[in-house]
C-alpha cells in the first residue's frame, strides 16, 4: 500500500468518476457533486506528492488553497443554480439554453 502509484491510481479513478458524473448528469447540483469529486482527486495527488515526491509541507498548503477555492466555488455555483431555478423552474442543464427568461 505504501507507494506513490497506489495513491495516484486512487486519485485517477476518483477523477474519472467525477468526470463521469459531470458529463452524464443532467441535474445542476449533481454536476456540482462531480466537480467536488474531481477537486478531491487533485488534492489527493498533491498530498501523495507531498509524502513521496519531496514536496513536503508545500503540498499541504496547495491542498489547503484548493479546499478554500472549492468552498468559494460551491457557494457561488449553488447561488447561480438557485437563480436558474427561480427563473426557469428547472435545473435540468439541458433545458437551460436561453439567456432571457
Amino acid at each position, binding site marked *: *500500500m505504501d507507494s*506513490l*502509484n497506489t*495513491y495516484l*491510481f*486512487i486519485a*485517477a*479513478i*476518483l477523477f*474519472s*468518476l*467525477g*468526470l*463521469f*458524473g459531470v*458529463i*452524464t*448528469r*443532467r*441535474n445542476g*447540483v*449533481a454536476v*456540482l*457533486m462531480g466537480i*467536488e*469529486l474531481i477537486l*478531491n482527486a487533485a*488534492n*489527493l495527488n498533491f*498530498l*501523495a506528492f507531498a*509524502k*513521496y*515526491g*519531496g514536496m513536503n*509541507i*508545500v503540498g*499541504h*498548503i496547495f491542498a*489547503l*488553497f484548493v*479546499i*478554500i*477555492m472549492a*468552498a*468559494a*466555488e*460551491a*457557494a*457561488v455555483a*449553488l*447561488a*447561480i*443554480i*438557485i*437563480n436558474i*431555478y*427561480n427563473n426557469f423552474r428547472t*435545473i*435540468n442543464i439541458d433545458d437551460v439554453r436561453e439567456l432571457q427568461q
Partner: protein
Amino acid sequence: MIDVAFWFVVILTLGSALIVVLNEKLVYSAIALLFTLFGVASLYVFLWADFLAGAQVVIYVGGILVLIIFGIMLTNRITSVNISHTSVQKGMGGVAVLGIIIVLGIMILNTPWYQTEFVEPAQTTATIGTLLMMEYLLPFEVASLLLLAALIGAAMLSRSGE
C-alpha cells in the same frame, strides 16, 4: 492490520463515489458524497496530513455538503415526486471515462516519478501556520479576498428580487 484499514478506506471511498455518480435519487447521492469525503479525509491521514484531514471534514462535510443539501431541497418542489435525476448517455460517457482511466494508468506506470526518502513530519499544523504567515502570505490574503467576494456574490445572486 494497517493494510486492511487502508484497503477498507479505499473501497469505501471509491464505492461511495460510484454511488454519487450513478444513483438515481439526488439525496442518496449527497449522503454517499458524505462517505466519499470522509474516506478522502482518512486517506489524508494515511498521507500524514492530519491538519488537512481536519480541514477536509470541517469545510467539506460541515460546509459544502450542507450547502449542496440546501441546494437540493431548494430546487425541488416538495410536492414533486420526482426528486430524481436520470443520467444521459451513460454508455458513451462510460466508454470515454474508461479510456481516460486506462490512459492515466499507463501514464502513471510508465512515468519515472521523482521520489525521495520520506521522513514523517513532527507536526504539520505549526509548520503550515508559519509558512502561511511567511512565504505564502500573499496567496493567503488573496484567498481571504476571494472568500469575501464569493460571500457577497452568493448573497447577491441568491437574493430574490428587490
